[in-house]
């Protein structure tokens, strides 16, 4: 397919960058994985797992964007845990523990904007 990406890379176009509303998220299907994609006010695009580890609901794309210092964050709409959009690290646990079998931190997916298209590269994820 594309010559630049490594042979194993799966580049999944998600949507047009212009379709994203600043500070709001959308959910996308990348293979079988639900990914939450956010465009922030500064123009950057971030992608994390859509699964909320504290509620086991696929709702992170409906969370509220914010920041802790310079770190852009996403807050779960269920129990309000706060996660870094850069590293996925859970910054505020709200004194709760994630559901069994889940890490508190979110998986982060590399996301690029190419030719106006938002593209997620699953192979580069943790």
């Amino acid at each position: 397919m594309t010559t630049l990406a490594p042979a194993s890379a799966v580049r999944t176009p998600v949507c047009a960058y212009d379709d994203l509303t600043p500070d709001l998220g959308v959910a996308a299907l990348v293979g079988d994985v639900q990914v939450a994609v956010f465009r922030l006010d500064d123009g950057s695009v971030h992608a994390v797992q859509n699964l909320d580890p504290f509620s086991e609901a696929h709702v992170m794309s409906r969370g509220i964007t914010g920041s802790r210092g310079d770190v852009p964050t996403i807050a779960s709409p269920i129990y309000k845990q706060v996660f870094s959009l850069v590293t996925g690290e859970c910054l505020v646990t709200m004194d709760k523990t994630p559901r069994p079998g889940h890490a508190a931190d979110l998986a982060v997916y590399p996301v690029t904007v190419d030719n106006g298209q938002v593209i997620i590269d699953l192979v580069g994820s943790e």
Partner: protein
Amino acid sequence: MATAALRRFTPRLLVEDADEDTVIRAIDRYLMLYIRTADRLQRTAPWQAEYEGGLEAIREVVLEDSSASAPTSTPTWPTTSTPTRTSGRPCSTTPSGSSSSPAFVNAPETADPSLAYVEERGQRRPATPAERVALVGSASLEEIR
């Protein structure tokens, strides 16, 4: 005002045998008089009870334009036809139509596969974790790695 301090007030008749226009105008003027003269957080019943001149005075203002300082006879209550929107986030910017809010931006026809429902007494409810195992095949719905 403590809840325990609230007591029942007997409904009192302001006007009877009124046509629709009179009723609407009376409600409008009653509410505007209340808004302009009641204390902060004072409810309508105590306001009505403590209004100088009592219900008779309110009736004169509401129905008979007795007071110069009373609300004007034209409706002042904001009409509800004016759409309101909060500042900041836009309302849905996508044109309404076929699918107002698809689960996935890149697969608008696909429903969220993690959602499982069970019918109970003729109504749909979310499946319990145990039921989910049978329906979706995984209780914890772990993301694939």
